[in-house]
């Protein structure tokens, strides 16, 4: 695979978020148009992704996974905290940096029925991220499009067709081709297989795995499907109500979860065999409101192992053992 499109930079690139926070104004009700509070979608999340690794981000709806993805894609600006790429803060980006960032960090979204423009030919969809007007000829671009189509397992000549002529799995391949066309280093995968039929999911998961090995890509896979996240991820980050609760090597987290929420979340995932049942921890209650999250640890009202200080004091983010981080008063 040639990589002439990327200028030579440091060997190992890193995407690093420090204290990422995103509040959205809470509007509606009688104060129409005026904010009467803040939806704390993301609150002080520090996370990093190194080149070639796969970070799985799991959590339930409202945990802030998708907001984090949007920050990574520069689709939202953080309220506080910083995101840096290759050692440079995104706030300080000039036009050149921004262009390079957009090239290096690409996305694949959940639903290939809505993420592909039905009125564009596949070749134009896939070519869209390519920079134009910088002397690259159409022939070179068309060749690159054919190359990535082949790379994702479609026919080289399928570019002349429209999205409706493809099945769900093939559409997701087109979305992946579009993400790969600029020789990215990082792919943000937001629920990449949730919208697909079960018999097609394996095709896409295996494709993603193969592409990662061939192209040395780093993935951030955001999923509520714990089994799919486990299949791809090398490191796992668990989120709850806008906060990170645990980060660690994927196998270690699955084998021995530290945070009580991680434990409950993993025990709620149903294994694929009737006899392989883990002891199940059924949590009472619901995910708290992001407008008015509980004081102290946000998980304490549902936590089966809560201590008296959990409702008063927010637990610190600490490294419990090498490479294993959690925020919990138990440790």
């Amino acid at each position, binding site marked *: 695979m040639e990589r002439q499109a990327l200028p030579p930079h440091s060997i190992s690139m890193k995407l690093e978020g420090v204290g990422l926070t995103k509040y959205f104004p809470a509007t509606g009700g009688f104060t129409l148009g005026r904010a009467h509070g803040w939806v704390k979608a993301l609150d002080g999340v520090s996370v990093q992704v190194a080149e070639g690794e796969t970070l799985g981000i799991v959590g*339930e*709806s409202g945990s802030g996974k998708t907001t984090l993805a949007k920050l990574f894609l520069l689709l939202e600006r953080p309220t506080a905290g910083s995101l840096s790429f290759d050692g440079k803060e995104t706030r300080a980006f000039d036009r050149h940096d921004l262009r390079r960032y957009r090239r290096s960090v690409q996305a694949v979204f959940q639903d290939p029925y809505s993420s592909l423009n039905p009125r564009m030919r596949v070749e134009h969809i896939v070519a869209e991220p390519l920079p134009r007007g910088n002397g690259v000829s159409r022939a070179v671009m068309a060749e690159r499009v054919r190359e990535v189509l082949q790379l994702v397992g479609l026919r080289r000549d399928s570019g002349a067709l429209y999205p409706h002529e493809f*099945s769900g*799995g093939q559409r997701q391949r087109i979305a992946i081709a579009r993400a790969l066309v600029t020789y990215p280093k990082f792919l943000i995968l937001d629920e990449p297989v949730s919208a697909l*039929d*079960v*018999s*097609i*999911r*394996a*095709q896409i*998961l*295996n494709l993603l795995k193969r592409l990662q090995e061939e192209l040395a890509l780093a993935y951030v896979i955001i999923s*509520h*499907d*714990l*089994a*799919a996240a*486990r*299949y791809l991820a090398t490191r796992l980050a668990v989120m709850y109500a806008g906060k990170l609760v645990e980060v660690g090597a*994927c*196998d270690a987290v*699955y084998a021995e979860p530290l945070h009580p929420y991680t434990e*409950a*979340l*993993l*025990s*709620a*995932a*149903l*294994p*694929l*065999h*009737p*006899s*392989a*049942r883990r002891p*199940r921890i*059924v*949590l*009472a209650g*619901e*995910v708290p409101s992001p407008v008015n999250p509980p004081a102290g640890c946000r998980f304490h009202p549902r936590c089966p192992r809560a201590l008296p200080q959990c409702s008063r004091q927010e637990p610190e983010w600490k490294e419990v053992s090498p490479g294993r981080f959690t925020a919990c008063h138990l440790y």
Partner: protein
Amino acid sequence: MREAAPLLVVEDLKTHFFTRRGVTKAVDGVSFTLHAGETLALVGESGSGKSVTCLSLVRLVPEPAGRIVGGRVLLEGQDLLQKSPAEMRRVRGKQIAMVLQDPMTSLNPALTIGTQVGEVVRLHQGLRGAPLRERVLESLRRLRISAADTRLSHYPHQFSGGMRQRVSSAIALSCAPRLLIADEPTTSLDVTIQAQYLELLKEVQASAGVAVILVTHDFGIVAAIADRIAVMYAGRIVEMGTTLQIFNHPSHPYTRALLRCLPDIEQGRRQLVEIAGQPPDLARLPQGCPFAPRCPERQAICEEQFPSAVAVASGHVAHCWAAAKQPELVGASGGGAAGAPPPLD
């Protein structure tokens, strides 16, 4: 449980959709039986006919495009397909109740939940006033809706997703139905809420003795709560057996492929085996076995004729020519009390 007459017998049910593109055979000869208190999971991909099977049981197939063109549905001996629309209305909600996938669309956003739960009790039990209110409260409390009496005057948007699904289950179970059809009841719920809901469903089912038909594509849910499994593909049941039989000895190549192609939380990075190709177009089904074009064990006969039921073990049948050839089979006619579907053609 097995000695008594089955609660529900479905025989050779066929529901077709007549469209401009031709006849779409959404359900094409489905047979199964269900006993009181039992949970049968209908498993399959989208378009395999799971949901249309369920809609056919309660005669809610969207007409005029869709029509039940053949078969029998016997609920406690009475053929539902012969009933008049007025008689069917008395069956739905009372003898057979449904829980649908998305409670946000199955509940009416403009009515309080008290009204919505009360409606079905009023219609089927003829209760009014204080006894009606008592009954509604009771069915909400059974589904663990806390502070039920203040909740009566709330609207669906004031509830969380998990609570909404419990409200719609309360509606379904309020008239003590014999059969509950749950069509992907947890797809819109988060995993921890799904665990809560499934636990509750199991508990309520055991105490009320209601039979459940669970429609899902998630083998994890099936493994957790089903007694028996029917695997559907392209409008037909291709394999049926107890949960352990299906998981331990999957006998149809499609079932085997499905179980190998899913990531398992317990197995980490075990390589997934892909199923080649796409699910078939139901308007242009191949002549023989619909799975044949994707099947790794395809033989010449598979493309000519759909295989009849082969008993793999007692209560475990598969529709597959390859399964018929396996030496350890007990015979091609058995099927035991669990009700082997009659051979098709």
